[in-house]
């Protein structure tokens, strides 16, 4: 049997492993005097936003106790290391659900707040932070504060999307949403251009709660883009389906020396995936199968081999919906860099309370790139600059290489946020985007 004493983020890039310290009770947050710390959840961030500069991270996994669940009003309080799949397993049979979920259920609720995650229903429900009632924040000066919209509200806003830098969240309270069926009505259809996609999502977002598109990056050619648009909404009430346990069918990818991901395999996968799904199909699908398809394959990140991979996620504003997007897609297509998991989604207008919240009204683009060293980093940074030029921004939770300029341009509120950082907490990401190391390093 293997024992992994070090943790790493999901992208598994070289040099991103850290030792672990653990916390067992909310009363015992072990701040260190000598070096800065950072809370670590399930390690589903892709880059170094979840890593300390060098020292051990503070693993919150044992802080997974449920504290209070009001089955009449849907108020739910739990410790920050509680995992989404565990929470859903216990609240869904009681007729409640978490209003915003990301692409995997293997995240902690603390991580959901720290990254202010969003899901396929952003245009309806906003981000996770929109549904957080309050939380307890512990700081290195020994203070313990309950933060909410009415109490310690500035710290509340700084902590949502605050990447764990304002303090350690010990417990939090969410406002759940009633749910009457676990089954979603899903429709899928193909599209052939960017404009097609924009039109489809504008129409669908009115009546469908969950919308997103998958597409083939390499198919991009001057506005033409091959993809599949998916829309879903809860089916008719079916309370029996709520008792259905989450699927536990899982296959695990072993450690692989090289990558099974290559330009050929990507092209092959994209061609097969598109052909199999392009007919206009309607289906009734369990919520977890629709939202967390990759969870069926544990450790799918190992497919990228020992060098790991980069994730690219950006948002373009309403004012410049497709021009910047077209440029970025053109860049990737011309470099021959395909991607397995290329997705597009429209963000809605619901504002999050978080200072560093990523979603803004417009479109978001997500791609993955296997790590081929400096050329990959350069390509991504080139694309980042294009995004900024067109008024967009980059998502820290996915990033492993954004420069200080890109970060500050993405989040003008960073100055206000920086006032709230806890000096006892620090991430490798923050050091990079604040240029706190070598001034001469110049973002290299």
């Amino acid at each position, binding site marked *: *049997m293997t*024992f992994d004493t070090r943790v790493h983020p999901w992208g598994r890039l070289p040099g991103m492993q850290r030792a672990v310290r*653990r916390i*067992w*009770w909310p*009363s015992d947050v072990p701040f260190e005097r000598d070096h800065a710390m950072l809370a670590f959840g399930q390690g589903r961030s892709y880059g170094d936003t979840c890593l300390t500069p060098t020292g051990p991270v503070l693993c919150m996994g044992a802080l997974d*106790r*449920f*504290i*209070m669940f009001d089955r009449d009003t849907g108020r739910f309080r739990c410790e920050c290391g509680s995992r989404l799949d565990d929470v859903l397993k216990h609240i869904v049979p009681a007729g409640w659900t978490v209003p915003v979920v990301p692409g995997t259920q293997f995240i902690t609720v603390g991580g959901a707040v720290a990254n202010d995650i969003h899901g396929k229903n952003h245009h309806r429900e906003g981000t996770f932070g929109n549904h957080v009632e309050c939380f307890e924040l512990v700081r290195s000066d020994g203070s313990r504060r309950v933060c909410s919209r009415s109490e310690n509200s500035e710290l509340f806003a700084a902590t949502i999307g605050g990447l764990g830098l304002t303090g350690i969240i010990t417990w939090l309270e969410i406002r759940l949403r009633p749910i009457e069926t676990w089954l979603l009505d899903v429709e899928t259809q193909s599209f052939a251009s960017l404009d097609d996609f924009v039109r489809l999502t504008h129409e669908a977002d009115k009546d469908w709660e969950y919308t997103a598109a998958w597409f083939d990056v390499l198919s991009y050619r001057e506005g033409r883009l091959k993809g599949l648009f998916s829309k879903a909404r809860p089916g008719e009430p079916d309370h029996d389906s709520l008792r259905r346990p989450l699927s536990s069918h899982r296959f695990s990818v072993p450690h692989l020396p090289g990558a099974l991901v290559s330009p050929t395999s990507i092209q092959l996968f994209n061609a097969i995936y598109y052909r199999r799904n392009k007919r206009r199909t309607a289906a009734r699908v369990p919520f977890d199968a629709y939202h967390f398809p990759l969870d069926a394959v544990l450790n799918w990140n190992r497919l990228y081999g020992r060098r790991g991979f980069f994730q690219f996620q950006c948002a373009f504003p309403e004012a410049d919906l497709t021009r910047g997007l077209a440029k970025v897609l053109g860049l990737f297509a011309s470099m021959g860099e395909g991607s397995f998991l290329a997705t597009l989604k429209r963000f809605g207008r619901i504002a999050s309370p978080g200072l560093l919240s990523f979603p803004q009204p417009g479109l978001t683009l997500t791609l993955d790139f296997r790590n081929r060293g400096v050329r990959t980093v350069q390509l991504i940074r080139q694309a980042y600059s294009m995004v900024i030029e067109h008024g967009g921004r980059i998502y820290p939770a996915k990033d492993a290489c954004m420069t200080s300029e890109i970060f500050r341009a993405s989040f003008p509120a960073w100055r206000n946020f920086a006032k709230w950082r806890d000096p006892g907490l620090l991430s490798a990401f923050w050091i990079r985007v604040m240029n706190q190391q070598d001034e001469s390093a110049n973002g290299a």
Partner: protein
Amino acid sequence: MPKRIVVFGATSALGSAIARKYVAKDDASFLLVGRSSERLRSVAADLQIRGATQVQTLTASSGGNDYPTAVHSALAGFAPIDVVFITQGLLPSQEQLEAGDFELLRETIEANIQSVMQAGLLAANTLEAQRNGVLVIIGSVAGDRARRSNYVYGAAKSATAAFAEGLRLRLAGANVHVLLVKPGPFTSPMTAGLRPGPFWSEPAEVADLVVKAIDKRVATLYAPSAWRIVTAVLRLLPAAVLRRLAL
């Protein structure tokens, strides 16, 4: 499938992991015993939300004079009992003990021997009277053979093992089964200072093995099972060899 479960040391990593295993099945009721009422409340609230039918807590310390009466009446009030787990323990710093910290020595013996035997005897009385049930005592592989690095702890766990075997002899005639669990080291507050080694485990994994062993009426469980072979070999090694291994 046991439904009425008593856990001594319920706030320990293993104690609470075992309780979690049972609450996941239907209809479990718990009596949780521990020294910190605040932590017991946390564990109890968590179990309740996860679907426990009933959770009672008892804040008691084996050092107190009222411990026997408090535990006896709590057990009586919780009857009939299916399983009693005794999971508390303390892993002391060997260096501190060798430096002469005898307060730590007293605490080590209190946690690993005194409180385990008190709870064990009280539970045995109750289970013997109801002529039914299972008693589970958490020992350690450290008790199988003394090692340079933790022989005081090992000695205490060795005492626990002999105690469990004695109880087994006593209770066999009363239709009460005794399971002695010998886990290898696993992630817990107690092992925070240790570097994980081979066969290192997690509380949930050990708890899983314990629950299965109860169903199968095993007498001694090594968790994970590889430890059975490891300690068997260790016990056969001549002292001279053991000395050189610097364990």
